[in-house]
């Protein structure tokens, strides 16, 4: 297992290099001058000071050297100073990452808790009304714009019915970590973002369950008198879930990308909203870091998924 994880980590390196090159190149293609952006409205700065600042930031170095310096700093977890907040970018990001993870992890749990039973029901009641219902829900869940669903949630359940808060993480003056108030605030964003996962999972699981259920060992389990529930849970589901693990890649991608929109709609102080606000403020170091960090988190989640996959299916390790 250790060797598998090491090899898998090694495979992530070229991907990481690609992301760094792309992010760096994109910001350097920008027509605007970073010095201008940094100094903003400060007019009492002499041209000499500007030249000195440019030199001290290393902006006169050749691009490859700048790139290497930038990567070297990132390896030391230094993304530079935010133009807007005048604080180290890494501090700002570290404050926000746990908030974003709360949504993603909760959404993942909800997706599994609802998606797996739905997938099994769709397979077992194939061709019946339940199957059709779940199919319609799946297609509709894929087609509905997440941000619009979020807006509808806020408009109906928060503004009109006043059941849920309009946004943010806590009620004013309350900050109690993971308590009821937090959960109450989490319901909106998690419900909206999980729809995408719940739409995805049953479709894949249904196919797998149907495949497994016709296997000989399932017939054997039934004929030796095992109760149907035990057959489904112990024999069918255990095998059908293995390929489903890979589908979590798509679901995670949707969650990470969706965070940008959902955190904005629900005013959730996470990585997505931080990056969005940085983009509005033209705070390049922060935008760069937001893109790199969210990609790294995504790569890391892919890694966890593959480890989980190798763990449930020992054949994978040999590949």
């Amino acid at each position, binding site marked *: 297992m250790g060797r598998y994880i090491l090899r898998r980590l090694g495979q992530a390196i070229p991907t990481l290099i690609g992301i760094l090159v792309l992010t760096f190149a*994109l910001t350097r293609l*920008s027509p605007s001058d970073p010095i201008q952006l940094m100094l903003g409205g400060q007019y009492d700065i002499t041209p000499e000071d500007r030249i000195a600042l440019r030199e001290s930031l290393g902006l006169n170095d050749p691009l490859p050297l700048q790139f290497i310096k930038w990567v070297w700093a990132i390896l030391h977890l230094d993304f530079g100073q935010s133009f807007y907040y005048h604080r180290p970018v890494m501090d700002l990001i570290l404050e926000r990452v746990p908030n974003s993870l709360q949504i993603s992890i909760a959404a993942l749990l909800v997706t599994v808790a609802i998606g797996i039973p739905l997938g099994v029901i769709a397979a077992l009641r194939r061709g019946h009304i339940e199957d059709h219902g779940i199919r319609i829900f799946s*297609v509709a869940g894929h*087609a509905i714009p997440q941000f619009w669903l979020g807006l509808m949630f806020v408009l109906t359940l928060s503004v009109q019915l006043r059941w849920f808060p309009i946004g943010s993480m806590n009620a004013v003056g309350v900050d109690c970590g993971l308590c009821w108030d937090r959960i109450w605030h989490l319901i909106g964003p998690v419900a909206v973002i999980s729809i995408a996962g719940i739409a995805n999972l049953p479709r894949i699981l249904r*196919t797998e369950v149907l495949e497994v259920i016709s296997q000989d060992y399932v017939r054997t389990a039934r004929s030796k008198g095992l109760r149907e529930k035990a057959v489904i849970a112990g024999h069918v589901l255990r095998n059908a879930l293995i390929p489903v693990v890979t589908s979590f890649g798509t679901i995670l991608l949707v969650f990470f990308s969706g965070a940008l929109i959902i955190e904005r709609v629900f005013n959730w102080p996470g990585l997505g909203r931080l990056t969005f606000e940085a983009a509005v403020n*033209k705070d*390049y170091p922060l935008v760069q870091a937001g893109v790199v960090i969210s*990609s790294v988190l995504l790569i890391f989640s892919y890694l966890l998924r593959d480890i989980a996959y190798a763990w449930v299916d020992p054949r994978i390790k040999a590949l």
Partner: protein
Amino acid sequence: MATDAVTTTAARVRPAEVRNVSAGLWSDALWRLRHDPTTVAALVVLGTMVALALAADLLAENFFHRAFSDQDILSNYSKPSGAEPWLWLGTDELGRSQAVRLLYGARVSLFIGSLGALTALVLGLGMGVTAGYFRGRWDDVVVWLVTTLNSIPLLFLLLIIGVLFRLAPLPFALLLGGLGWLGIANYARGQTIALREREYVVAARIVGCTAVRLMVRHIVPNIIPLMIVLAMIEVGTLILVESAISFIGFGIQPPTPSWGNMLTNAAQYLGKAPYLIYPPGIAVFVTVLCLYLVGDGLRDALDPRLKSR
């Protein structure tokens, strides 16, 4: 896999009257499609949308009597009413007709979705088939590109591009296509790897077929039907992406109306004019839903064996 029996002559065969004999891939598929009410309904809705979007100028001038940018401050925030056609969906904060703006939004969304998907299809097919056929270094490069781009959350990438460049609809569509080809390329590559060792491909190679001819005449025709299905679904996905990125202000810029940036406005005036929020959202939802249904229906029609799954 799916398209083993596909023949390159399919398009030339005339549809037969009786269906117990196969008349070729496309006419068989058309026949099956006609007997699938959901797909037909989705196609009709989609056709209506396209027609309305194409006729936006005509309708705005002769029916609604309003251009999408016409402001009428005196009748701003008017609720939807049947009094005059241009008030059917109400007006926004500047008194612009929502109905007319929705029509032009359809134009932008459908244009970006279809051009983007077409770009993705061409890129994905080109990259995927060549990678699968030549293997080696080129394959490594393509796989690396796909993995890398798949590891950056798409909206974050579009955000950083949106900060640096203000894009008009045409380059924006090309950009979306340039980022949306990954799925198609992956599939094309897998299929090509499977097909290149087939007897008929090996036979063609032995008689001296060039690589280009092999790919164009013997491999691509076998995978194109399902590629078109994937591209169809991609149209829907790109419409969703466009509306999301325009909603947060980094996609299509006002005053050009797009369903996404209409919702930015609607969200801002949620308290004062909540009715503004329904039409653009429903428009995106219905359009994407129909595209997915048509994609699914087309896949079943092209390969009925998949339907049971």
